[in-house]
């Protein structure tokens, strides 16, 4: 049996897992459900010995496999203990062939070379590998040339090869599956289920993580539901149904800041037509959308389903196709410089690494974008010819900002690296607002911020929309905050717009479109 007992993990101040306990019996298919940010990926990373966990401070709690203590610090430990994992993003090496990938770190060698030269310099038994792979693929029901390079395979085949790699491990005891059916059609999904049921008969336990609730209900005997890093419920599939599950997964929060007047303009300030964007992690395809003047538009999706690609595509930070029209001007050759000259400002999700100059003062950070793109804070004649920075004017402005936005710092000269997370966010936001943007794009505005600061920040957005007539696009995975401030909420699924809902729509309705 695989036992997880009171496992907790924090990333800095953010508690990702809070006393998680769960049990998987040999041969059991155990489902794991939860919204974005509920902690599923972190749990999988801990179970599979991902080095990221140790690099960020390790975890607390105990794990046991078959009564033996299991504390994997590296993937090698996990593999030795019999834990396999099939991840959402392909984990195999593109430039190597299927056979090389499957047999990596488990290579078979020609015996006499092994005796002669040691296991490292023993010659690879290529025909032995080939025979194994052919047998394996026949067993799974997959037909592909084992010498084909992994990067040339379709996404569905890639998933099957990853699965094949884990199955090929003779020591496999428990298999973790992260969104295994995300890119599979019905036929392949059935194939996959057949394979998993076969594994179950061999007494291999499985942890099946998915957003497809119906699939989890049909395949898994036991289901655990996570929410905000805690266990929100543990059900058996016999006693579970869709509604109960939705209720467990989502949560209503008390709302304080609230959109008062809904925007009534129907002049589109941003138009997307047949717009596609491709980032390494996700992509969006053929988007049609109109964003109206002075509206506050929310955008949400599950992770990997397009909200990040949407933001990056809008700002020209990744490859894009199709038409983007801003202020009635078609954006050919889309890039951040052009968008900024159109009056767009962008507040990125990862403000700590992308939104601040940590070694510089609060003043410098707040004044930077406005100085560079709007020539604000220029020294007077004749120095303005050399485009010199007026630090006095900037300082006064920054002092105004710390008053207005309640930024807690010793002085405007303090280096932003020493501010707390919430105050860093506010500095970043103040910097974007200093450019008097016509359009403000914000990604995850309240991520990593304490509760009281969340309300302050949401109110800031409402204020600038009201006072400066700024159109705001808020991209977030926190449904409640979007409901608080937005006029409309766009839901992406699998790279396309699934629905545009009003903030008054119910949570289950959102969940339906998200998953």
């Amino acid at each position, binding site marked *: 049996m695989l036992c997880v007992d009171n496992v907790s993990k924090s990333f800095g101040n953010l508690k990702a897992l809070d006393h998680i306990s769960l049990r998987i019996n040999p041969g059991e298919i155990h489902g794991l459900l939860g919204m974005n940010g509920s902690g599923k990926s972190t749990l999988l990373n801990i179970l599979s010995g991902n080095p990221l966990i140790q690099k960020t401070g390790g975890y607390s709690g105990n794990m046991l496999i078959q009564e033996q203590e299991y504390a994997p610090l590296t993937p090698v430990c996990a593999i030795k203990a019999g834990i396999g994992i099939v991840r959402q993003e392909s984990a195999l090496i593109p430039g190597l062939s299927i056979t090389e990938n499957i047999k990596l770190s488990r290579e078979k060698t020609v015996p006499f070379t092994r005796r002669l030269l040691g296991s490292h310099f023993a010659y690879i038994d290529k025909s032995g590998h080939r025979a194994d792979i052919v047998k394996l693929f026949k067993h799974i029901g997959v037909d592909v040339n084992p010498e084909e390079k992994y990067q040339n395979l379709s996404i569905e085949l890639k998933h099957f090869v990853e699965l094949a790699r884990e199955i090929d491990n003779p020591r496999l005891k428990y298999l973790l599956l992260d969104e295994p059916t995300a890119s599979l059609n019905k036929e392949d999904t059935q194939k996959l289920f057949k394979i998993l049921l076969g594994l179950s008969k061999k007494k291999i336990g499985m942890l099946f993580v998915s957003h497809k609730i119906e699939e989890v209900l049909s395949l898994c005997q036991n289901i655990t539901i996570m929410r905000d890093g805690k266990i929100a419920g543990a059900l058996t599939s016999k006693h579970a149904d869709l509604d109960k599950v939705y209720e467990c997964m989502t949560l209503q929060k008390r709302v304080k800041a609230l959109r008062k007047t809904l925007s009534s303009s129907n002049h589109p300030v941003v138009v997307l037509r047949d717009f596609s964007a491709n980032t390494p992690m996700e992509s969006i395809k053929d988007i049609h959308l109109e964003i109206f003047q002075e509206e506050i538009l929310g955008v949400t999706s599950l992770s990997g389903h397009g909200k990040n690609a949407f933001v990056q595509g809008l*700002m020209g*930070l990744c490859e894009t196709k199709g038409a983007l029209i801003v202020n009635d001007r078609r954006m050919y050759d889309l890039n*951040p*410089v052009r*968008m*900024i*000259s159109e009056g767009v400002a*962008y507040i*990125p999700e990862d403000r700590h*690494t*992308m*939104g*601040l*100059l*940590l*070694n*510089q003062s609060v003043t410098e950070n707040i004044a*930077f*974008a406005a*100085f*560079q*793109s709007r*020539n604000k804070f*220029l020294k007077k004649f004749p120095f303005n010819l*050399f*485009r*010199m*920075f007026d630090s006095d004017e900037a300082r006064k402005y920054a002092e105004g900002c710390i008053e207005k936005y309640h930024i807690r710092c010793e002085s405007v000269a303090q280096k932003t690296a020493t501010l707390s997370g919430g105050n860093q966010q506010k500095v970043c936001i103040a910097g974007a607002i200093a450019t008097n943007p016509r359009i403000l794009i914000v990604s995850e505005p309240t991520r990593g911020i304490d509760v009281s600061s969340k309300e302050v920040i949401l109110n800031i957005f409402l204020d600038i929309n009201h006072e400066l007539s700024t159109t705001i696009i808020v991209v977030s995975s926190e449904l409640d905050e979007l409901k608080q401030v937005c006029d409309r909420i766009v839901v992406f699924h699998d790279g396309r717009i699934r629905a545009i809902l009003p903030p008054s729509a119910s949570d289950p309705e959102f969940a339906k479109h998200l998953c």
Partner: protein
Amino acid sequence: MLTRKGFTLPQIIISVFIAMMFIAAFYLHIPINIILNDVMVRLVMNGVLVLSLVPIMNAGIGINFGLPVAVMAGLLGMCVAVNFRFNGLAGFFIALGFSIPFSVLFGTVYSYGLNRVKGREEIASAFIGFSVVSAMNIFWATAPFSNPVMLWPIGGKGMRPTITLEPFFAKTLNRIFAIHIGECIIPAGMILLFVVLCLLLSIFFKTKIGKAITALGENEIYAVINGISVGKTRACAIILSTILGGFGIIVYAQSYGFIELYDAPLLVAFPAAASILIGGAIIKSNRILQAIVGTLLFQTIYILSSPIANELLLPESAEILRMFIANAVILYALTTQRPMTR
């Protein structure tokens, strides 16, 4: 200057080293006032070259091992000035002036090259530097200069590897405004020029483009998000570095008294890089200060190591020792740098 927790390892090593050398110098009766004069002259002589590394480092491109590109521009400027027989202090400034168009041209092409090797700028700059030196060898061997002082005596075609600046502007900067205090000569004119250059560079980094360069070097994705054009900003930093490098070799040559062509510029980048890296170990904040302090320390080591090596060890070993120190400093910096965010 010092960290709140006490001295860092590099600071300790450098301080101990310098102290040891001063003690050794004292022991061997090497006169202090000559050392002081040497230090001041060498500070400026090498300092401008080290200063030229600052814009490229600030832009986040790393160590400019391609300094030979800038040196070529400076050499061309000097050759043109010498060819038309400009001399005296005016000749020196005219050489500086002539080097600028070459620097801008070379710098633009160089920036095009560096923008094509994102992620490998340091190694690529080293080899761009080496290739430019070897390409220029072909030029020097066939150059259309007319002043016979620059050409081979026999045959008359092809430049000499070393051209003496005696009749032109050798040491003119060193001597101008020189202040004599007892036995010690302070080259005030030289120091003044250096101070002016440092101040100008400092003011540059307070302008819009200067701040853009600094932001690019500190956090590239932040700069991109805030509308800074990466290619153009890097090009600006690279061209500025090239202009300063051109000035640097001219200041160096006039102080040394010779223009050195052919393979001489090959290794000029390494001592300069070591200087700024030593400075970086002591001063964390301002790169210009790092350049000044680093050059001071590095040149002091140079000056003191020569006589000591000659006395205690063997003459040729001084040069080997210096190369070792320079490269060891660079290696230390490479292995202790935190990975840059790209």
